[in-house]
C-alpha cells in the first residue's frame, strides 16, 4: 500500500497491526482515504469542501473528527457512507469502494437527528434495517430487544417516538444502527442536540457500548470534551478548505468514565486539541 501524505498517519506502515494507546488492540485498516477532495460547484465560485484528505482508520478504533462548522467533517463521513461522492482521490472501506461497502451494509449510521419513523413503535424502528435486509420477524425482534436493552430502553418497545424525550429518541436511533450488527458505526454529532447532562450520560453509555461490542466508531463532533473522553484518536480539521490539521493519539486509559475528563491527561489532551484547532485558524474571525 503506498505511503500517503497524511500528517501523523504517514509515520507508520498502515497495514501492520499495531497496539493502540491504552489496551485497545487495533486491527486491520478498515477505512483508507487517499488524497480525497470534494469541490462543490456553485454559481459564483467553487467551494472546496474537502481538500487533500489522507486518513486511515483501523478496526476497533474510536476516531473523532473535530473542527469548526463548515470544515467538512460531516461531508467526509458521508463520503465514507456513500451518501456523497468525492471529486478526487480514493476511498476504500473494508478494501471496497464505499458503494460496495454500503451494499454489503458495512456500517450503521447515526444522524444528527434521531430520524425515527413516527408511525413505527420503538421496536418497529429498531427492526426496520432487518426488515429491509429480510430477516425473519422473530429473529429481528429478538435482536431489536437485545439492543434496546443495551441502550437502556427495555420496556419502551411499544412506545411511539413522540412519547420519548430527545435523549431516548437518539438512543433508539443508536439501537437501530447497532441492530443489524455492522462492524462499523458512523456517528454524526449524535448528541449535538441534547442538553449537557443527557449528553454526559449518553457519552458514558456509548463508551460502554463500544467496549462491549468492539466496533469501529467514526464520531463527528464539535465538542472538545466529548472528543477527548471518547476517542482513541482525534482528527482535528479546519475549514476553507476543509482539511486535516492534526491527528492526536489519545493518552487516556481504555477504562474511562465521566470523571476521566477532569484527569490531568485529559486536560492536557484537550489543550492539544485546542492548539490544533488554533493552528487551523478555527478561532479566527
Amino acid at each position, binding site marked *: 500500500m503506498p505511503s500517503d501524505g497524511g500528517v501523523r498517519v504517514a509515520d507508520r506502515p498502515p497495514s501492520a497491526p499495531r497496539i493502540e494507546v491504552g489496551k485497545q488492540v487495533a486491527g486491520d485498516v478498515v477505512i483508507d482515504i487517499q488524497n480525497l477532495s470534494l469541490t462543490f460547484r456553485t454559481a459564483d465560485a467553487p467551494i472546496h469542501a474537502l481538500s487533500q484528505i489522507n486518513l486511515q482508520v483501523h478496526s476497533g478504533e474510536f476516531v473523532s473528527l473535530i473542527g469548526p462548522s463548515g470544515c467538512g467533517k460531516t461531508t467526509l463521513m458521508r463520503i465514507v457512507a456513500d*451518501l456523497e461522492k468525492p471529486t478526487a482521490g480514493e476511498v476504500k472501506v473494508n478494501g471496497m469502494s464505499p458503494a460496495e461497502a*454500503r451494499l454489503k*451494509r458495512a*456500517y450503521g449510521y447515526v*444522524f444528527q437527528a434521531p*430520524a425515527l419513523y413516527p408511525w*413505527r413503535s420503538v421496536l418497529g424502528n429498531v427492526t426496520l434495517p432487518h426488515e*429491509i435486509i429480510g430477516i425473519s420477524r422473530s429473529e429481528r425482534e429478538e435482536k431489536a430487544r437485545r439492543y434496546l436493552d443495551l441502550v437502556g430502553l427495555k420496556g419502551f418497545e411499544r412506545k411511539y417516538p*413522540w412519547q420519548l424525550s430527545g435523549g431516548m429518541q437518539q438512543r433508539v436511533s443508536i439501537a437501530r444502527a447497532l441492530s443489524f450488527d455492522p462492524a462499523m458505526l458512523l456517528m454524526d454529532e449524535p448528541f449535538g442536540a441534547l442538553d449537557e447532562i443527557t449528553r454526559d450520560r449518553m457519552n458514558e453509555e456509548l463508551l460502554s457500548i463500544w467496549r462491549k461490542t468492539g466496533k469501529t466508531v467514526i464520531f463527528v463532533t464539535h465538542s472538545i470534551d466529548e472528543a477527548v473522553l471518547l476517542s482513541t484518536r482525534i482528527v482535528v480539521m479546519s475549514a476553507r478548505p476543509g482539511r486535516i490539521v492534526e491527528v492526536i493519539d489519545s493518552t487516556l486509559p481504555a477504562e474511562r468514565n465521566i470523571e476521566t475528563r477532569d484527569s490531568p491527561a485529559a486536560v492536557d489532551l484537550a489543550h492539544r486539541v485546542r492548539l490544533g484547532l488554533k493552528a487551523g485558524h478555527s478561532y479566527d474571525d
Partner: protein
Amino acid sequence: MTETAMNGRPRALSPRGRVLPVVVIVCAIIVLWYLLATALNWAQVEERLSNDPMSTSVATMIDGTWSMEHPVLPAPHQVLAEFWKTTFEMSPTSKRSLVYHAWITASATMLGFAFGAILGMLLAAGIVHVRTLDRSLMPWIIASQTVPILAIAPMIIVILGSIGMVGLVPKAIISMYLCFFPVTIGMVKGLRSPDPLQLDLMRTYSASTWAVFWKLRMPASIPFLFASMKVAIAISLVGTIVGELPTGANGGIGARLLSGSYYGQTVQIWSALLMASLLGSAMVYVMGGIERLTLRHMGAPR
C-alpha cells in the same frame, strides 16, 4: 380560558361549548331563510290575492309566502316536511322515496371515488418515481381540470349512453375525472414529504425503491392522502349529481333535481339538495373516522 391547554395540545371542548356556536349559526340561517322566502315570494302572493282585498293583511301575506305550492324559495318547514315525507314515510324501494334516489347517487359516488382515488394514487406514485412522468404528466393533469367538465358532463353521459354505457358507470366516470386530481396533488406532496435524513437512512441500508416506497414514502403520505380524499369524496358527489341530470329516468338526486325543475316543484328540489348535503357531510364524516382510526393505528397521539 382558551381551547389550548397548558401542554399545547388541544383540549376537548365541553359539549355545551361545542353545541352553542352551531345552534346560533343554524338559528341565524333559518331566520334569514324565512325572511328571504317572504321577500322572494311576496310578488306572487300579492298577485294571487289582489282579487281578494279582504285578505291582504300583512300576517296573511307572510303566511302565504311560507305556504305556497310552487314558491320561488320554499320556507324551511316546507322543505323539512317534504324531506320527512319522502325519506321516512315511503318505502325505500319506491321511486318517489328520497332514500331510493340517495342510494343510487351514493353508490355511483363511491364507485367514482374508488376509481378516482386509485387513479390518483397510481399517477402520484408514477410522478414521484419517474422524472419524465413528472414533467410530461403534470401539465396534462392540471389542464384536465381546466376543462369545464360540469358543463359538458351531460353531453358525455349522452355520448357514453349512445355506445351502450348506462347506469352507474358513466356517472362514476364523471366523478372519477373530477376527484382524482386532489388525490394526485395531495399524494405527490405526501410521497415527497419524508425529510432528507429519513431518506438517507434508507440509503444506508441499501434499501430498494420498492422498500423505500412501502416503508417510508407511503406511510409518510397517509395524512396528506386523507386530507385530499376528504376533498375528493365531496367533489365526487357533485360529479355524480351532475352526471345524473340528463338521465332522469335512471334516478338519483340529480334526477330528482331535474324533475323538480321541470314541474316547478321547488320544494322537491330543495329537499333533494338537503339530502345531497347530508349525504356529502356523512361521506366526509365517515372518511374522517377512517382517517382517525388509521392514524391511531399508526401511533399518532390520541
